[in-house]
C-alpha cells in the first residue's frame, strides 16, 4: 500500500497524461490503469477541459449565413474595400517617414554649394580674427598713454611741432643733399 502511494502521479504527470498518456513512462502508465485515485484525478481534469469545449460551443452564436462559392459583390464587406486604400495610405506614409529619417541621418545631405559657402565663411572668420590680433598688437597700450604722449590730440600734428621747434640740422642736411645730388649728376 505504502509502495503504491509513493507511485501516485503528481500534478505534472497528470497534466502530461492529459496531453498524451503515451508520453508517460510505462511504469506510470501501468499505475494509471490500475490506480482508481490517479485515474479519477486525470478524468476529472480531462472532464473539465471537455466541459470548456462543450460550453464554448453551446454559448457561441449560431452561423446565420451559408457559405457561397461565388465571389459576389456582396460577399466582401465594404470595410475590406476601405482596407485597400487605407493600406496604401499607411504604406505610403510609412515609406515617406523612413525616407525622411534616412535623409536626415545621411552625411551626404549637404549639397556641395553649401559646403563651398561654408568654407568661404570659415576663411573670412580666420581673416577677421587675424585682423583683430594685428590691431591688438598695434594698440597694446591703454588709451591714457596715448593721451599723455599727445598722439591722440588731433591739433598737435607733426607739422605743428616742426613749426614750434624747427629742426636744428635742417639746413646742413639740405646742403649735404644738394651737394650729393650735384655729385651724382
Amino acid at each position, binding site marked *: 500500500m505504502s509502495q503504491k502511494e509513493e507511485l501516485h502521479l503528481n*500534478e*505534472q504527470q497528470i*497534466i*502530461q497524461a*492529459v*496531453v*498524451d498518456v503515451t*508520453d508517460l513512462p510505462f511504469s506510470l502508465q501501468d499505475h494509471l*490503469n*490500475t490506480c*482508481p485515485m490517479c*485515474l*479519477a484525478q486525470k*478524468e476529472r*481534469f*480531462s472532464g*473539465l*477541459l*471537455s*466541459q*470548456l*469545449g462543450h*460550453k*464554448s*460551443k453551446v*454559448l*457561441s*452564436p*449560431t*452561423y*446565420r*449565413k*451559408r*457559405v*457561397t*462559392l461565388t*465571389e459576389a459583390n456582396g*460577399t466582401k*464587406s465594404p470595410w*475590406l474595400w476601405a*482596407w485597400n486604400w*487605407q*493600406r496604401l495610405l*499607411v504604406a505610403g506614409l510609412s515609406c515617406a517617414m523612413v525616407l525622411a529619417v534616412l535623409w536626415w541621418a545621411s552625411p551626404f545631405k549637404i549639397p556641395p554649394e553649401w559646403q563651398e559657402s561654408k568654407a568661404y565663411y570659415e576663411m573670412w572668420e580666420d581673416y577677421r580674427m587675424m585682423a583683430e590680433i594685428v590691431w591688438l598688437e598695434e594698440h597694446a597700450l591703454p588709451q591714457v598713454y596715448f593721451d599723455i604722449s599727445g598722439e591722440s590730440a588731433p591739433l598737435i600734428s607733426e607739422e605743428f611741432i616742426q613749426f614750434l621747434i624747427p629742426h636744428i640740422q635742417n639746413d646742413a642736411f639740405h646742403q649735404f643733399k644738394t651737394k650729393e645730388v650735384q655729385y651724382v649728376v
Partner: protein
Amino acid sequence: MVAILKPNRRYNEADTSDKEYQVANLAKAARTGDRESFEKLVTLFQEKIFQMVYYRTFSQMDAEDLTQEIFLKAFRSIQNLKEAHYFKSWLFSIAVNRIRDFKRKKQILAFVGIDNRGQGFEEVERKIYDTPQADNNLFKQEFWECLGLFVKKLSHWEREVFLLRFLDELSIREIAQSINKSESTVKTHLYRAIHKFKGDTNLVRLLQGERR
C-alpha cells in the same frame, strides 16, 4: 471500480473514421474540380470554422465574413492539397493564417486610429446586454469574460494550441499539421497552457458550477 472510471468516449471511433473516410473522398473529388463535393465539405465544416473564428474574434459579424473568406480561399486552392485525408488540417491551417492576418490588420488600423470598432470582450458584453434575455445571459457573459482573461495569460502558440485542442477538438497530429510545427512542440505548448488553465481558479470554478 476500475471499469466505472474508464474514460467515457465522447464519440464513437468507428463513426470518426467513417467521417474521415467520407471527408477524404469528398476532398479527392473536389481536388479534381468537383464543385458539388466541395459544397458538401462546406456543409460539413462551416459551423466548425465559424465557431473557430468566433473563439478568436468574439465578433459574430467578423466570424461570418471570415468564414466566407476561408472557404472561398480553400475552394480556389483545393488543387494544392497534396493529401486528401489531411483536408481538415489543411482547412484549419487556412483559417489560422487568415485569422492571424485579420488580427494584424485590425491592430495596425487601431494603432493609426482608422478602426475604432468595438472588438473583443467589450463587444461580446454589449451584445449580451442588448439581448432581451439578459438575465439568462449572465452566465454566458461571465464565461466569455473568464475565457478571455485566461487566454490573455497564454503566449501566442500556447493559446493557439490550447484552443485548437480543447475548443476546436483537433488531435495533436491535426494541430501539428495545421500550424506547421512538430508534434512534440505542440505537446510542449499544450502542457504549459494546461498548467496555466489549472491555475486559473475563476475559470475552473465556473466550469465546476461555482459562480465567482
